[in-house]
């Protein structure tokens, strides 16, 4: 029917896995912002949530790496990681194969996308769901953009993909929420984990909030790698959400660096024109 919610959030595994090592004041503020995001999604009347993640080799490997993939199953298992390490028990999240099929069919009109009838969630989706649908009572449509194995998906294609997802969300009968997860600057899974370029994050988020397409697509992989690390490549998920939001303006609800979580912990959303307020 329409896109009723568009937002972004962090997904670093430390958010749940190393919760007790973070400064409780900052951490709890972040968790509160996550909970507000959950409430906003419920209030939006969303009947399904598209989660655009940059996965970390849970499903796709260099032997067959799609630039874009969308899940098309009635359920998804996760997390692939050790539950004690991630701080999230094994779960089965509901999907909606039929809705996926309709979304994919529409997206394919403009963007070549792979689909997958099997899909396991890693922390990229499991961490956001832990906060946003703790009861696993809303169907999830998992989406992946290759932010891991170069050559990476170009930013302007991530934009085109986001536009296609936005259009597809309008084309189906259900109310759709779309969430991008990842980044922003970080050096995950390296000895530099914990470094955060906060100034870079705030500048990127400012562009994201203004939905400044030119600025968002102006980054090069070399710049991002130097200033925002390997993890910075995940800005693709944010860029797709910006495109899906079709010019809407955004608000950052929370953005604070939490080194043990390895990122500027971020919650932000767009005020969608299609939603009555």
């Amino acid at each position: 029917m329409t896109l009723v919610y568009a937002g972004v959030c962090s997904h670093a595994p430390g958010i749940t896995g190393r919760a007790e090592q973070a400064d409780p004041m900052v951490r709890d503020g972040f968790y509160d912002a996550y909970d507000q995001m959950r409430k906003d999604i419920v209030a939006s009347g969303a009947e399904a949530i598209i989660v655009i993640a940059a996965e970390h080799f849970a499903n796709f490997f260099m032997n067959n790496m799609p630039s874009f993939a969308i899940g098309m199953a009635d359920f998804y298992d996760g997390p692939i990681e050790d539950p004690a390490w991630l701080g999230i028990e094994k779960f089965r999240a509901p999907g909606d194969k039929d809705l996926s099929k309709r979304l994919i069919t529409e997206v394919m009109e403009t963007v070549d996308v792979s689909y997958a009838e099997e899909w396991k969630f890693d922390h990229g989706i499991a961490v956001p769901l832990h906060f946003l649908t703790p009861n696993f009572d809303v169907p999830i449509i998992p989406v992946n953009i290759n932010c891991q194995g170069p050559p990476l998906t170009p930013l302007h294609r991530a934009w085109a993909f986001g536009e296609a997802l936005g259009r597809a969300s309008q084309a189906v009968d259900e109310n759709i929420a779309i969430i991008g997860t990842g980044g922003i600057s970080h050096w995950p899974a390296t000895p530099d984990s914990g470094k955060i370029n906060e100034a870079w994050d705030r500048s990127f988020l400012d562009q994201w909030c203004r939905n400044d397409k030119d600025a968002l697509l102006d980054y090069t992989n070399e710049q991002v790698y130097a200033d925002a690390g390997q993890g910075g490549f995940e800005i693709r998920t944010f860029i797709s959400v910006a495109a899906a939001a079709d010019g809407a303006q955004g608000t950052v609800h929370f953005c604070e660096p939490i080194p043990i979580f390895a990122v500027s912990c971020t919650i932000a959303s767009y005020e969608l024109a299609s939603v009555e307020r």
Partner: protein
Amino acid sequence: MQKFLFELNRDRALQARYDEDRAAVLAPYDLTTEETRALVEPDIGLLFHLGVNGQILMHFAALHQIEWQDYLARMRDGIEKYGPVREGVYAVTGYEGVGADSQIPPAKADNQ
């Protein structure tokens, strides 16, 4: 080698078999003696040096219940012992930016 780790990380049945007999599970893969040793031990620092993608290695370390600060320290030690990461984007980029990292205590001192 990364292909094996990718499969291991996502497959609980394979994890159980690997737990029982690491050598047998690794046999069908085309691995050097050095790679096999790095996996079986596991030598996280060597695997990082050899260019195993950081995300794949992080999940592998989690599978072995290696505590976070210990895992970071093992990667650092590997770079010191074997040299810089051979290939891939999960290298140490030399980023020296200020910011949040200035708030964290030295990782090794923090390793309980």
